């Protein structure tokens, strides 16, 4: 049954490469304005889900429904979605400003207002002073902001993130986590975020989808994952690993206070 709040509904999605089953009967929904993290180890199929959602891959079978419309085979640019890749895929020969503006200039819908949109986004993303810099002269965090701004420029309902913070240092990650949540509150976008980092998923998400080997183990709120893990895998991969991290942290903090 489709909840009226659901912006996205994934039904019985199967995907294989040659003989290997990558995704096995994937079903889930995403609510409007929700921040959903897809959490799992490398090779579990989480990036494949993202590429299917955006339309860069097509499933063997199953349906992707957005706002009640079947978009399984719709062209990626017509899905109302944007994506931020792990390596950002910025246009190296263009400045930050031009990176954000380029797609707008080619789109009759945005062309007339392109400069205004870019300037607004540059202010919003604290990038104004870096507008004329090329990607090679931007830090990792700044590059990511440009990539997000470029995605926001086309005004998507849903933004997908493919492990965008894995190459950043801890401090930048913490800053960007907050900025991302602030952005979501401002623009009311639905965000689907891929990560293999439990702590990151717990810090940012409204709900977390835990995956392994092409299957979903549990989709739930962070609290429920801890209090009611669906199976041993969730218990081990999520709860146990987080506990180990927390214990280690508390031990060090305790030591500091004792000193």
């Amino acid at each position, binding site marked *: 049954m489709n909840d009226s709040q659901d912006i996205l509904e994934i039904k019985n999605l199967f995907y294989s490469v040659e003989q290997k089953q990558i995704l096995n009967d994937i079903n889930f929904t995403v609510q409007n304005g929700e921040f959903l993290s897809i959490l799992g180890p490398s090779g579990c199929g989480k990036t494949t889900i993202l590429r299917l959602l*955006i*339309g860069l891959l097509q499933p063997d079978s199953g349906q992707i429904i957005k706002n009640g419309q079947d978009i399984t085979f719709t062209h*990626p*640019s017509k899905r109302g*979605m*944007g994506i931020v*890749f792990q*390596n950002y895929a910025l246009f*190296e*020969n263009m400045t930050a400003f031009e990176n954000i503006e380029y797609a707008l200039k080619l789109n009759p819908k945005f062309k007339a207002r392109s400069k205004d949109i870019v300037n607004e986004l540059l202010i919003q993303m604290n990038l104004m002073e870096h507008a004329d810099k090329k990607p090679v002269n931007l830090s990792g965090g700044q590059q990511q902001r440009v990539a997000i701004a470029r995605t926001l420029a086309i005004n998507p309902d849903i933004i997908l993130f493919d492990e965008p913070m894995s190459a950043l240092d801890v401090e930048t990650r913490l800053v960007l986590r907050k900025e991302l949540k602030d952005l979501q509150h401002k623009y009311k976008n639905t965000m689907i975020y891929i990560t293999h980092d439990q702590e990151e998923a717990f810090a940012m998400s409204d709900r977390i989808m835990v995956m392994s080997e092409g299957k979903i183990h549990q989709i739930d709120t962070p609290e429920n994952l801890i209090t009611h893990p669906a199976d041993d895998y969730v218990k081990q991969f999520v709860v146990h690993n987080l506990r180990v991290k927390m214990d280690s942290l508390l031990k060090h903090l305790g030591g500091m206070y004792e000193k």
Partner: protein
Amino acid sequence: MKSKLNWIQVVLGCFFLFAVIGPLLTMFLTIDIPHLTAIFSNKAFKAATYNSVVYSGISAVLSIVLGGTAAWCLTRSRVKFKSFFILILTIPMLIPSISHGTGLVILLGANGILTNLLGLKLPLYGGLGIILGSIMYSLPVAFLMFYDILKYEDALPYDMAEILGVNKLRQFKDLTLPYLYKPLISIIFAIFTLIVTDYGVPLTIGGHVKTLPVMMYEDVIGLLDFVKGSVIGTFLLLPAVVAFVIDLLNKGNANASYVRTPFRLNKSFARECFSYLYLGLITIIVLLPLVTFAFLSFVKKYPMDLSFTTYHIHRLIEMEGLVYLGNSFIIAISVAVIGTLGAFVTAYLSARIQTKTSYFLHLMTITSLAIPGLVLGLSYVLFFNGTLIYGTLAMLILVNIVHFFASPYLIMYNTLNKVNRNLEDIGMILGISRFNLITHVIIPQVAPSLKEMAVYLFVNSMMTISAVSFLSNVATKPIALMITQFEAIMMLECTAVVSLIILGVNIVVRTIALRN
């Protein structure tokens, strides 16, 4: 969309199959068993095979040792002016192989400058001349191949070996040799093939010592014996095909690691002294023939009359030199433009559109690497004879594009493989067409490689004497072939002028195009 591109890949792959394999098959089909047995039992053929293998083998080994040592000096010592040495060492790549032969004749021939100056009496015409000329011709290539390999070697294992107290000899045996093993095999075959398939050096300086390419050249040009030419051509394909296959097999593991620690070299007086001396000596040896070209071009008659003259230039003009220079420009510019565009499109299709046919296209494109120019030229004569294109400049443009296509293609293929893999995805999501993405994003990113490709095609088309030698006529002859013509009538001063013109044009083009 992808299936359409898939089809383009197949069509392009088939084009290369047609452009390379088609003419070759025609050449094979001209061979019959009686001719084959007659040629194989021919004494002159046996002698030429022996000469080719022995002299090319010796030249290749010496060239590799000399080029390898120069590369070592420039990558493992703290000598200054490295860019200058690299520039000088690669200059001989800008003149035809035949110029290296004439350069040696001018320097060390019976009446050569060094012969007269130092009172030398070298038996230059024959095996020694072939060896020396072939070294001069192949040294820059051997040097560049070694330089690229040594430049990208990781210093970390050596740092670890130092920490563990492993001595230098053991480091060389256990680290350097295993690292060099595979590339060295590729270099040996590549240099041997380069020398064994060249006719320019042995034609000028071989005297009575004939090699297979010279025999093939004389049989086809002088006697119009296409069957014998085809047999020798097929024979010459063997080392080239072996070199190609070995290189293909070796490449699989070549780029296993992208992360490398650069060498931090301590000062070493002995090493630096040796490097300066060695590089200085090599530089002089490389520059000497080029200087003599300049000298000989403007003296009346060496050694009798050393007064300044522009007579040889006028002579060249009288003999339609400007027309042939014009032909060379038309050919070189057309090859550079069409070849660069074609190589970019092909490389884009095989490197960026991952389908089942990508590898087919890639393989078909690099097949021309296995075909020596002389063999390609003869096969084109047999394949295109009687067609509209035969005997036109378009024929020479086509054969040069096919002959030189693989190298610029590989430059672009490797460059495009390093460009962010997600760009096309982002373009698709943001509604940017593939054409816009290529012209506005990808081409600006790969522009330096495009320039490099165009220069490679231009320079090689200006100086080639191999594939074009059988296909050109009085109206379409490129200027490089005038060297063969002048050499045959012993007009050494005019060969020097032509070599100098080709060198000058190539240096100017390379400098202007790659100045940034």
